């Protein structure tokens, strides 16, 4: 299926357009920077009659997710959006949405969690809820925001697992780029009509009853299995979407990685900067490559291990800090996936970058590959995890 011609869109408009085309029955949201333009654009679609959605403008994010949970439990298709402190405020209900197996799709324009107060991009907000039982997929640009909203909704409704599509606050959400949207008919055919199973107002059932030591563990076991099983569904849905949209998406993106010796792992918009760095280094004969994380939940440990095992040295970049931990989330989990490799394993360095919207510069990319080169040729690393782009003095 051919795309329509590209139109200029920010990540926020791309998200709102995907939401409009998905025709959710209910959207409940509360504004927070940098997510605000998503719901602003979507409410315009509702006001203009472009989409027949019950838009509930609530008094807080806690209420937003609560309204989404209630609506989804009736069998409605439900979407929303938030960021940062809003996500933190709703986090209690974020866990409950996943526990009750309600396939809500939420756009996140990721932003630092204060304090002191900061409204710019980092991934600390989504890391707060990484263990909540939601699917989490990081996207690089407005085009991916659009595509992954549709992909995530299909996966979510298929698996009865909620999903968050994570774009970088401001960098992606407010950045205008050409985006190819699909014709409405194609979106309709792809998503189909949501079948909520036995959720129906005509057949009342109880959600969220008391669930103590005699059953709770079994329900968590179901969730563990659901996220594991979602891996196959994710692969199927990506394949289906690629066929109809002409895209080439995978569970993660590899860029010049197959014959690389040095690799970086990164999520979100920074992948664009680092692809440029890889190109420049390749011209100089350095075997550099990149792996851009897409899905972080579920975590594709086996596939990641296979994609990275041939490298001599790997840098894993986190746009979040886990205070008091040995490196941040990506570093921890990817490095521990590599532990199972037989024989000599790739050497791994961890970098924390971009907190509170600090720019990740091209020179930082060269600095990282320079350090990888050193440890790849036998030098002992002088650090395991460090911050990059901060004033060390």
């Amino acid at each position, binding site marked *: 299926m051919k795309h329509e011609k590209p139109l200029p869109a920010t990540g926020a408009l791309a998200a709102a357009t995907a939401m409009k085309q998905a025709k959710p029955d209910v959207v409940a949201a509360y504004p927070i920077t940098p997510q605000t333009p998503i719901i602003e654009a979507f409410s315009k679609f509702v006001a203009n009659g472009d989409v027949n959605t019950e838009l509930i403008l609530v008094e807080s994010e806690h209420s937003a997710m609560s309204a989404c949970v209630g609506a989804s439990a009736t069998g409605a298709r439900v979407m929303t959006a938030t960021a940062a402190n809003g996500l933190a405020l709703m986090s209690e209900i974020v866990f409950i949405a996943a526990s009750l197996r309600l396939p809500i799709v939420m756009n996140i324009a990721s932003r630092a969690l204060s304090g002191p107060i900061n409204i710019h991009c980092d991934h600390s907000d989504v890391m707060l809820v990484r263990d909540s039982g939601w699917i989490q997929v990081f996207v690089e640009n407005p085009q991916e925001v659009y595509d992954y909203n549709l992909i995530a909704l299909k996966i979510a409704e298929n698996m*009865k697992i909620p999903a968050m599509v994570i774009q970088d606050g401001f960098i992606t959400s407010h950045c205008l780029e050409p985006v190819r949207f699909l014709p409405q008919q194609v979106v309709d055919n792809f998503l189909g009509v949501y079948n909520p199973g*036995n959720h129906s107002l005509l057949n009342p059932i109880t959600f969220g*009853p008391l669930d103590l030591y*005699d059953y*709770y563990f079994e*329900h968590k076991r*179901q969730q563990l*299995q659901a996220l594991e099983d979602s891996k196959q569904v994710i692969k199927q849905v990506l394949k289906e979407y690629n066929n109809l949209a002409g895209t080439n998406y995978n569970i993660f993106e590899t860029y010049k990685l197959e014959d690389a010796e040095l690799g970086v792992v990164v999520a979100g918009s920074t992948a664009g900067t680092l692809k440029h760095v890889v190109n420049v280094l390749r011209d100089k004969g350095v075997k550099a490559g990149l792996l851009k994380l897409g899905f972080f939940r579920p975590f594709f440990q086996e596939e990641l291990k296979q994609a990275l095992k041939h490298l001599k040295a790997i840098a894993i970049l986190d746009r979040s800090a886990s205070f008091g931990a040995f490196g941040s989330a990506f570093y921890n989990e990817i490095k521990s996936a590599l532990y199972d490799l037989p024989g000599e394993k790739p050497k791994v360095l961890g970098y924390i970058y971009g907190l509170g919207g600090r720019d990740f510069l091209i020179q930082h990319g060269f600095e990282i590959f320079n350090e990888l080169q050193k440890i790849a040729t036998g030098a002992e690393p002088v650090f395991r995890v460090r911050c990059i782009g901060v004033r060390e003095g």
Partner: protein
Amino acid sequence: MQIKPGLPWKELPLGGVIDVPGSSVEFHTGDWRSSRPVIDLNKCTGCMLCWLNCPDNAIKIKNGKVEIDYDHCKGCGLCASVCPVKAISMRREALEEEERHGSKHKP
């Protein structure tokens, strides 16, 4: 789906949803009790104050006599404290257990 105790996770409804109503009676909250009310029917006048005050609907009438539903009585003691003729006494479950089994320890 009828939920039976001991079902493995694959056989339970997703997310703990209850799709057959009225299942709360199957939850024996009486298990939590540390003291149980015991009625002396010789003193009981059948005034029903205990029935009126029981927060767990655990006082029943059977064949014209007051009876306690020990599956759902949590042992709060409200019935004993409102009984105007002191027909209800609270007894430690551990003592009941000891009398029944002749030991301080549960089997």
